[in-house]
């Protein structure tokens, strides 16, 4: 193992989409116990720097592994099918229509209840796309096919953030 090992190797996990969050959390803490700079405070600046590199790397891997969307995108990338979210922005029409509907609903929402209904809709779509990811990545082993749902999820994620912020208005 070294600093270039991929996230799954670092955490000693199989390259799968489905992961047990409790196992992941426990792993993260176990690894930090070994590598955190606090373990090496008595050993000088060089030791601090090396420990920090490892500790940073473990935190980076944990952030990616624990988030289903980031994990799915990472699996695509490891499988030679990068998502290229920035350069590749073409989306199917039905998806764009739905996004526009949601944006309108968000702007028109006049109560926390209306926002909550919208939130449940968004959550439902998100869950469906995650299921597709699981199907492509774990069952069919087709990582290129997972790229499309991952890209749609990225849009939904961004919308969900705006939606969360909108709740502030009604508090």
């Amino acid at each position, binding site marked *: *193992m*070294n*600093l270039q090992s991929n996230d799954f190797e*670092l*955490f*000693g996990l199989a390259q799968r989409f489905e992961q047990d969050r409790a196992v992941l959390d426990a*792993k993260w*803490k*176990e*690894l*930090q*116990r*070994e*590598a*955190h*700079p*606090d373990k*090496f*405070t*008595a*050993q*000088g600046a*060089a*030791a601090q*720097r*090396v*420990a*920090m590199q*490892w*500790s*940073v790397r473990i*935190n*980076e891997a*944990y*952030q990616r592994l624990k988030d289903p969307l980031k994990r799915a995108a990472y699996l695509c990338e490891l499988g030679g099918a990068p998502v290229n979210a920035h350069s590749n922005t073409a989306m199917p029409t039905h998806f764009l229509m739905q996004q526009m509907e949601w944006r309108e609903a968000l702007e028109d929402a006049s109560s926390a209840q209306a926002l909550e209904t919208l939130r449940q809709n968004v959550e439902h779509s998100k869950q469906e796309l995650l299921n597709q990811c699981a199907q492509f990545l774990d069952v069919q082993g087709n990582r290129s096919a997972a790229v499309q749902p991952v890209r749609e999820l990225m849009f939904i994620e961004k919308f969900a953030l705006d939606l*969360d912020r909108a709740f502030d208005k009604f*508090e």
Partner: protein
Amino acid sequence: MALLQISEPGQSPNPHERRVAVGIDLGTTHSLVAAVRNGVAECLPDGQGRVLLPSVVRYLAGGGRQIGYAAQENLAMDAENTITSVKRFMGRSLGDVVGADKLPYRFADNAGMLGIHTVVGEKSPVEVSAEILATLRYLAEDTFNSDLYGAVITVPAYFDDAQRQATKDAAQLAGINVLRLISEPTAAAIAYGLDNAVEGVYAIYDLGGGTFDISILRLTQGVFEVVATGGDSALGGDDYDHALADWVLAQTGVLAVSPADKAALKVAARACKESLTSAKVAPFAAHLSGGVLQFEVEQSQFYAATAALTARTIAAVRKAMRDAKLTVQDVQGVVMVGGCTRMPQVQDAVAQFFGRAPLTNLNPDEVVALGASVQANQLAGNNAAGDLLLLDVIPLSLGVETMGGLVERIVPRNQTIPTAMAQDFTTYKDGQTALALHVVQGERDMVSDCRSLARFELRGIPPMAAGAARIRVTFTVDADGLLSVSALEQVSGVEARIDVKPSYGLGDDQIAQMLKDSFSTAEADMRARALIEARVDADRLVMATQTALQADGDLLDAQERSNIDLAMQALLQAKSGDDAAKIESVSKSLAQATEAFAAMRMNRGIASALAGKNIAAL
């Protein structure tokens, strides 16, 4: 089983001796130092048995100074030169300090951080804080009759980069080796969690003299994971005092203008506030220049005058819970920290929000220092069996300014530290050869609403078409929560980096000079001590190098090995002489010669430890 090791008189100390490591709570109203003795964390009392040191420094004409109780007694008499609540000025400019006009000081409006004019000239908040820290350092050294190895110093969780850096500078100025800066609520959680052997999600509500923090932590088997934190680094007991004083002034029509009157009002307000913790009615009495101000304040009036402040804390709690993606049902307990949580209206508001009575069985003044001392003891290597691990977060988002004065966030708040995150940028003009980076901290979208931390430039980018350069900006936040930023143009390899230091003009040289001026002991003593220390350090270094070579010598090629051997020989020779400076410089050479080796060993050690964890899990 541990065996007691007793060395012969006069022999060099055992390299495995206990190191004196303390926890310091550098508070707005008072400060404490604590240490683990015989396995128990306790606050260290001064000669008169007091553990609280008022965070008050008075500068005297002629160069002397009073610190703590002596300074506090003269507060009303010499308000301009008696600095209280200096923590509120750390890393702040004059414009940042709300209500500065109500304070009895003559401020210097310096860029970056304000200064305070005193009878002995201008003092920076860092210097004033260093006086308090040095007093605590001496207290610890007297208590243990030994030099201090290092300290864990607590800061409000919601302190930004400038405030943390200022705190670390103050410690350096006081001659203290900072083992780690940790958050106050996290320190409190350690003390509470270890004392009560609790597991699960806990909220720490910490209302101090000048700052408010809320931290949500998950405790599992010695791991203290901060899930989310929030607060207000300019909201505390002082504001309750001011609100009460303002209310009384409004009721009576009295004015307070002079420094002495302002200081007298503050003292009166605090006394009244403290009485109202248990009494239904309390007197508000202040001797002002225009006569005696005497007024009766009812508890309910005090509550009403300060309700907006309490509400602000609850709003921050709600936000932190949302960041943590947790509901009040997930919370196993709420721990109250800070003397101001003694106020009944605060306890009631917290109980109402969480739907349960908060835990108040710990001394809210001491718990932070106690927790810090436990961490210090472990960081110093005194507790080899200790399995305490803190996973703290960065409280405020970090980003850079982009076109139109907007903030591009690079590290979002509540990221576990240490962390490094990068973002790619490009040039917007053809042939552009430099890029200015403005580093900011805060949650707002506009740069003007965030705190400016640093500016630096990446120069020497080869001329390219607009948008062709690939500039990767990396933010690294270390375990103390301090930021450094680097920028790398990936086509040409041009690089620039900066350790983000607040721009209040204290360079390392100035700090070294101030250190020499204010805290040095008698010179002869110092020389003798320096020689002994240099020899002990040299012994340690040689021993550590030999052990390392035995264990991992195979990592080195012949040339690297012989460099280290030569440096080691040189040190053994220098050690037999009595020139401390020479021993130190040769020690430094050996340390340099082994630096790369140390890094290789660490890498091997961590990689195999991590691999071991993974195998064990299969």
